[in-house]
């Protein structure tokens, strides 16, 4: 599929170029930055909710752990962001794995529910350990990351910060894409479809689930770290259940279990709160309406429905012609 590869390359280049195209207007550049953050987050969550069939409602909490760990290391221990961020991500990943363990016992909805509980607990935790989080007043004046060059350090401000986010987002999408095409990806889908059968076929369900949680939480943590140092501010409210739901909605709206789905979802949903500033009284209603609308009309999400439509058409053709061609997602 040559044209496909070409499209992927083109998209990548565009994604990396956009920050410079938007450099003129800091406002749109900022929205772009947020969009990259959510592409990163939603792709990470998609690995669980889409490909593994588990809806991790504690996702924002994990991002929070990544963020707070990084911020504390940078601001208190004055560690370089580039060393602190991996530590934060790792912390998030470990916690994510631990909090993911219920999924080995709890099926489907009960796991979702436990996620809700865990998320609430984490948010409370952030509020009530002020020595790390400054409580509900939050941590402000978080410095932007900087690159240590020989002689001097080059602070990533303005366009360079967005560019960093762009790179991070692109890498994440590629990572997720690579995983879903790897053996692990196949296993995750198999587990989602029928975990008993998968186990009976000789595939270690527990190991693969844990792996999925690890990677997904890692991404959450990375996103959290970038979020903190991009916004320059974090508070427990930045990582509450609504953030989890936002991220999930983006994935669901775009199309779970597809690579492009979360990206499409982000491009449509992430900028809304910023572009609809004047409609502040209606934002929540519009937002909630979108959720209801999605569940009712687009159970597969925007891009997902498109793929579904294409696949069913292909299947119809397959039924007709002896040499069928199957659309792959």
């Amino acid at each position, binding site marked *: 599929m040559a044209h496909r590869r070409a499209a992927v390359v083109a998209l990548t280049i565009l994604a990396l170029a956009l920050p410079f195209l938007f450099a003129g207007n800091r406002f749109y550049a900022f929205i772009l930055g947020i969009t990259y953050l959510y592409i990163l987050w939603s792709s990470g969550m998609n690995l669980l909710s889409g490909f593994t069939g588990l809806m991790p409602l504690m996702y924002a909490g994990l991002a929070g752990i990544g963020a707070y760990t990084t911020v504390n290391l940078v601001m208190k221990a004055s560690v370089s962001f580039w060393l602190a961020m991996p530590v934060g991500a790792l912390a998030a990943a470990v916690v994510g794995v631990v909090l993911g363990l219920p999924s080995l*016992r709890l099926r*489907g909805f009960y796991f*979702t529910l436990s996620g809700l509980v865990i998320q609430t607990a984490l948010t409370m935790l952030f509020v009530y350990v002020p020595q790390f989080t400054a409580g509900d007043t939050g941590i402000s004046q978080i410095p932007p990351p900087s690159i240590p060059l020989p002689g001097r350090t080059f602070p990533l401000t303005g366009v360079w910060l967005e560019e960093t986010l762009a790179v991070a987002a692109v890498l994440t999408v590629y990572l997720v894409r690579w995983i879903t095409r790897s053996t692990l990806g196949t296993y995750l889908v198999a587990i989602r479809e029928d975990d008993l059968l998968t186990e009976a076929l000789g595939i270690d369900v527990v190991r693969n689930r844990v792996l999925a949680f690890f990677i997904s939480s890692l991404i959450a943590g990375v996103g959290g770290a970038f979020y903190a140092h991009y916004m320059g501010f974090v508070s427990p409210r930045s990582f509450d259940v609504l953030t989890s739901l936002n991220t999930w909605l983006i994935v669901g709206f775009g199309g779970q279990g597809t690579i492009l789905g979360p990206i499409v979802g982000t491009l449509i949903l992430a900028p809304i709160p910023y572009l609809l500033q004047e409609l502040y009284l209606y934002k*929540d209603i519009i937002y*909630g*309406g979108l*959720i209801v609308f999605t*569940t009712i009309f687009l159970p597969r999400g925007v891009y997902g429905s498109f793929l579904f439509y294409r696949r069913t058409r292909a299947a119809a053709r397959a039924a007709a012609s002896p040499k069928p061609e199957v659309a792959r997602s």
Partner: protein
Amino acid sequence: MTLEAILLNGLAVITTGLVVGAIFSLVAAGVTIMYGTIWLPNASNGQFFMLAALLTWSMVIGWGLSPFLGAAVVIAGAIPFSLLLEKCLIRPFYNVPNRNIVYFIMTLGLAQIFAGAFTGTYGQWTDNYSIPAAWPGALMIGPFPFPRTRFLVLLVSFSLLTGLFVFLRLHRVGRALRAVFQNREAAILRGVDVRRIYRFSFVLAMLVITTGGVLFAMAYGFDLTMSWTMAIIAFAIMIVGGPGSVLGSVVIGMIFGFTQAAVSLFASPTLATFSYLVVMLIILLVKPSGLFAR
């Protein structure tokens, strides 16, 4: 502490435990009925609770109705409202596989819509809502003055819970409802019209939740943060008590009420709130079906 002081604190704990517990139990009962029969985990229960409370407030403060009349109007209004909801949003998914997740997400969306509507309307008018005592004055229990209104709330909620109990145990429809709790397929085989039961139990549950909201508005001052708190508490009680078990929701609701009341005598209330979540998580892991699950 003097004997009187001890008596005072003791009575305070008991009455508070009862009132708070009763209201928690009511809402949780509504949520648990919904989940038990329809398999609908209503994430917007807190908002419905809120809606009831706010409307009662409007009736009394805005329209100057007597609290009792206002309450009656709101509760009556809940019936057509819930019938409409059922028709538009709930019924279409009755045959959808793993509809509980679908419902969960949809009701989360619903919660957002209501939250937005509340802040856009009531949120512009005031930051705290409280209605004058429906039955002013207090009953003296020893040294402890127990406000009449809250005594009334206690009576109503308890009689409601008992009524709910008797209904589910004895009445024909109630039995059918419980049959659906226990085993949907079996119920169908025994010729129960499941869809009718679904609709009925949705309305019933909504009524219970609404009443909970109304009673809360009568007993306490409240604000818009209450909705999410209530939603989480109701879920917590349902999880611990066991989805579909009204008994469970009552028992656990009471326990929640009393811990919230008593803990501040011994530990920090903050600790208590946190401990709910932990307990809930453990229960989820050890016995996902809940303590009182049939």
